[in-house]
């Protein structure tokens, strides 16, 4: 069970919002140096305010733009335990699963949630709850392979455990 405090963001949060290219490229060999700039134009000093386990709740087209995987990696490094949104850009979605950051597509929760609400996510049963508001929503369960990647903590951890990625494993 994932449980954390909500950070409510709007539609179209891009990977540039999460980490701007000018910081990514000036500190390309140092992920930690990028932390102070994460979401800085959306929530000033986000890196100081965020706490371990917090959940981001976005709107439409979350993670649009660049393929930079630093975006989900930095969110995870800051302690974000999941991202819920009405829809995701496909590269961000794949990147997040690959690094073991759950990405949940839901429609009601993004409508009703506010920053500071308590959010719970039950991945195994595909349910997300806004505990503060007392509202629950079912989401489409992950395919088995993707669920195993998330449970392992990412594709790298999965490969360390099983030797190969699930799609190579299934063809062997």
């Amino acid at each position: 069970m994932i449980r954390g405090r909500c950070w409510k963001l709007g539609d179209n949060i891009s990977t540039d919002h999460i980490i701007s290219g000018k910081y990514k490229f000036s500190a390309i060999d140092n992920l930690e140096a990028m932390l102070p700039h994460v979401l800085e134009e959306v929530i000033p000093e986000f890196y100081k305010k965020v706490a371990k386990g917090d959940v981001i709740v976005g709107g439409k087209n979350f993670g649009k733009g660049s393929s930079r995987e630093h975006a989900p990696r930095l969110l995870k490094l800051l302690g974000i335990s999941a991202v819920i949104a009405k829809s995701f850009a496909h590269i961000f979605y794949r990147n997040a699963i690959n690094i073991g950051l759950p990405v949940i597509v839901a429609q009601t929760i993004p409508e009703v949630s506010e920053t500071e609400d308590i959010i719970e996510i039950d991945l195994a049963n595909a349910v997300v709850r806004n505990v503060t508001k007392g509202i629950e929503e079912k989401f489409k369960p992950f395919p088995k392979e993707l669920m195993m990647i998330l449970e392992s903590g990412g594709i790298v951890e999965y490969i360390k455990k099983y030797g190969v990625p699930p799609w190579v494993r299934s063809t062997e």
Partner: protein
Amino acid sequence: MGLIDTLLSRVIGKEVSPGDIVIIDVDTVYAHDGTAPLVIEVLEKELGVKKLYAADKTYFFIDHSAPAPHVSAAHVHREMRRFASKYAIRLFDVGYGICHQVVVEEGIVRPGMVVMGADSHTPTIGALALYSLGVGSTDAAIAIAYGKQWVRVPPTVNIVISGIPPRGVTSKDIILNIIGELGTDGMLGKAVEFNGDTLKHLSVDSRLTLTNMCTEMGAESAVIPLDEITLKWLEGKGVTPYRYVDYDYKKSEFVEEIVFEVDKMGPVVAAPPDVDNVVGVEEVEKVEVDQVFIGSCTNGRLEDIELAAKILRNRKVHPRVRCIVAPASRRVYVEALRKGYVDILLEAGCIVAPPTCGPCVGAHMGLLAEGEVAVSTSNRNFPGRMGHKNSKVYLSSPAVAAASAVEGRIADPRRYL
């Protein structure tokens, strides 16, 4: 079935449908200095793999911060060279050009291929009738290590473009008009296929701009079926299709078909803060401009530079404006030089930069100060994209960009054509 599902069915050897998750052998993988450092970290530090099954299908490009503007970039470039040399990966070093341009010019990607690029604008190369997927670093690393990846077969929307482009309307205006209609999430979770009689009027250079910008409406992939224009272009480079796919869009079914009448379009710009904020150029003609950028994987090809040179010939860049032109590749640069375009641009007062993505992504080579305004032929106008968070980017065709460079404010290029 669109061309993408037809191609994927052919590659896998059984019929696939949109929504199917399939495992596929990847024909080509590439990454650049913005994404390759993490690819290397995943392979060497996180996975510790000893063998890369697809090393001979992998290409690295140093194009985003090239030449290195700071020690951090120099360090990752050195790492890329070391890694590429160790695993016999072909690396296109500083000066070759932007990855999406070089892979088509060099015949690395060919019609019928399955290609993964660690960059969001990988759909650009779909103009050559292949399946392209933009991915992140870990996805690219796994494709390089195992030669296989999973993909979800995307539902394809058929975008039919019809009519002859009016004067001053380039493929950039066509695609911005389309994005303005469909929105930045209009094609989310879908692939775009272009068909229609307008294609007969668009060169391969122009087509690459169309597919490039599909990323900006959320499309996972974009494709243009093989035709005489593409075949002739390939022939000129001595390149043949990698896989022949029997395909006719007229016999195909799509999840959706949308028709755009190109002959009714005019030159447009995408005003800040997003790419679907599209307005006619005449509506913003009073906006003063500090910098013009002509280049990027969107509009840094020979045809784009030719168009800019046509407008800037015997004219001067406005004293208020820095006009930076970065050819997308060394080949484009050399061609532009031979045809005299570089002379024209320099005489006009432009800065002709080496091939780089730099300004588009705010990496280097012309960042914006607080309050400054740029007209750029690139693909994103998000706040702070090209510099300070309170700088503004208007996206346009090379024609609008060049006309704006002359006038010092956003300008209608039809006065010069």
